[in-house]
């Protein structure tokens, strides 16, 4: 906690530049130039330092993951996979069921959190302005963004245990947990975006006799759409890799389940974790060279790579949508 207080705050509390600081004298000018150079190097250095682990991480994932990543891996699930042996259809199982699970559960979370989050932002900006309630809601949204993911998982677990009976595992339970994590991000980013919609637009629309609801949906939300979309995509990107809450809510199965509301669902992060937990596969003594003992870890890395690629694609889609929408509003 103490770390927050120094560093950024430094010594300047006021925004108006202190002009006396720039009184030139030959010695100070030199010292200042040197300091400027040092800070420039320092900032560049922080970047380089931070790049090392990140590059290492990406490199490890790509190098290990590329080995088993092929069409068969993407189009099969884990049924019929025994030990390190190849399956009857060839290949060593795959992540189809986990991709479907991840997409459905994330879509479910979006369906819950985006309407609520955007409407909450609409309330804050368009209706409540700076009332007491609005202040409280803003504060609590900020606080909510700090909810640990495992607490969200426990919440969904408790909710469904009380409503549907203990031992309930299904996809929508996972969606609820993820939605709780997404909601504050969606709400906050939408609020920021609505805030920067120029007031002239609202006034013009209202002056033409358009009702407030239509002004908001047709003018304000329309203008803010690109920002809302990219904010939501970032929120999705934050939750799509959550493991712990899904482990206790959505469960784990080897076959494909497309029903979000019934039965367990495997998601990619959980799949990665389960394969890591297996670590090695057993090969009977008479097994041939086609039996691979290290196959679970290879699958884990490949699934991790698939997950990262999905996130990347989502990001790209978000950017694209934002771009297309923003063009259409300028027309």
């Amino acid at each position, binding site marked *: 906690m103490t770390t927050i207080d120094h560093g950024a705050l430094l010594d300047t509390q006021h925004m108006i530049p202190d002009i006396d600081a720039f009184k030139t004298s030959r010695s100070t000018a030199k010292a200042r130039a040197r300091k400027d150079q040092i800070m420039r190097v320092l900032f560049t250095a922080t970047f380089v330092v931070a790049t090392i682990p990140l590059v290492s991480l990406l490199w490890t994932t790509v190098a290990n993951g590329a080995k088993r990543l092929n069409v068969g891996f993407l*189009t*099969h*699930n*884990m*049924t*019929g*996979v*025994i*030990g390190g042996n190849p*399956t*009857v*259809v060839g*290949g060593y*199982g*795959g992540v*189809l*069921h986990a991709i*479907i699970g991840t*997409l*459905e559960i994330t*879509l479910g979370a979006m369906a819950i959190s985006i309407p609520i989050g955007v409407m909450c932002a609409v309330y804050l900006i368009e209706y409540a302005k700076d009332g007491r309630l609005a202040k409280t809601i803003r504060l609590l949204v900020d606080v909510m963004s700090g909810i640990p993911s495992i607490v969200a998982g426990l919440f969904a677990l408790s909710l469904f245990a009380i409503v549907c*009976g*203990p*031992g*309930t*595992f299904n996809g929508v339970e996972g969606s609820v947990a993820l939605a709780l994590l997404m909601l504050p991000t969606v709400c906050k980013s939408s609020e920021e975006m609505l805030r920067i919609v120029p007031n002239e637009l609202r006034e013009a629309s209202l002056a033409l006799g358009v009702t407030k609801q239509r002004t908001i*949906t*047709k003018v304000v*939300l*329309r203008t803010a759409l690109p920002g809302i979309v990219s904010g939501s995509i970032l929120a999705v990107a934050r939750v799509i890799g959550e493991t712990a809450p899904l482990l206790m809510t959505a*469960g*784990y*199965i*080897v*076959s*494909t*389940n*497309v029903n979000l509301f019934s*039965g*367990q669902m495997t998601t990619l992060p959980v799949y990665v974790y*389960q394969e*890591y*937990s*297996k*670590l*090695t*596969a*057993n090969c*009977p003594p008479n*097994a041939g060279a086609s039996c691979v*003992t290290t196959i679970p870890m290879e699958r884990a890395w490949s699934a991790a790579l698939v997950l990262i690629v999905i996130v990347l694609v989502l990001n790209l889609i978000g950017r694209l949508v934002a771009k297309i929408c923003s063009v259409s509003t300028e027309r």
Partner: protein
Amino acid sequence: MNNHMVTRSLAAVCGVGLLASLAACGDNTAASESTSATKDGVASLTGEYAGAGASSQQTAVEAWIEGFRSQAPNATVAYNPSGSGAGVSTFLTGSTVWAGSDKALSAEEVERSKSVCASGTAFDVPVYVSPIAVAFNLDGISTAGKHVNMDAATIAKVFNGEITRWNDPAITEQNPGLDLPNLTITVVHRSDKSGTTLNFVSYLKDVAPSAWPHDLSENWPNEVGQGAKGTSGVVSTIKQANGTIGYADFSQVGDLGTVAVKVGGDYTPISASAASKVIADSPVDTSVDGDNRIVVDINHKTAATGAYPIVLVSYDIVCPAYKESKDATFAKAWLTYVTSAEGQKAAQDAAGTAPLPSNLAGKITASIDQIKVG
């Protein structure tokens, strides 16, 4: 906007529909298999049957599910390796047909099972016996594929932090042929609650009570060494440094060195058949509450030659009668297959388990027969 919303939601629905059409593909199974029809309607069994429980059984269960498919091709079986505790809790809510568990039911759980079973109380049947290896990583010894000999008291002292170096006299005396280095021992144990830990420490407690002062527990009781999550965590930790020692399921230890444990006058290296021998030499605990239960009271002090005494016995927990008759048919067929020679062989190939000894077979069959079908 509204139109857009409509098209977008339509697109979403279509997307989900597309996913649904994908559901059938992806299974790694041959399109259709001719099946040898087995007894009383097992082959015609349809529907979904879910189990949950011990993660130790996971690999074996996956092999069993595959093997069971040839008996009941239209039944879908799923197993969630959520852990013994979670598995039993789920079973006791009635949402799964069976539970896998590393430990036998408690009296309270047997009592609670009355509410889920159509009649009678749930019972446990041993299905999975896995030797627990005391595995180590020591340059020049494990890399050369050699065993280190230890008796129970030495193992207990190592894991309790009383023996801290590999060249401690207690170890070198038992290993005259080995050149043990002057290196710190790093103990690696499970950090999560685990049946493997319980079975390992109960071996120590039974055989070397004076060297192991801690109570029995599924959690590691002291601060010695390092804890790691799951068998995979323990094994990868052992692999990461020289001089480490830990305990893990035999099938997972790979090329690590293993300790040969003193049984009687000899040191027995770990193997699946050696683990079966100690189960064959162990009595069934008849003092437990409830009917039909087969709880193996592992005889850690066994002196049978060639027996390896540190084993994990994992159970399947089922009801003697189910509210749905097909659940009963399934449970009976499933247990029959799993405990059969064929099922045990499948588990041995897939997970390196020890087969159930033949002297238990009769008792197991008698219990399974108590499941009321129809």
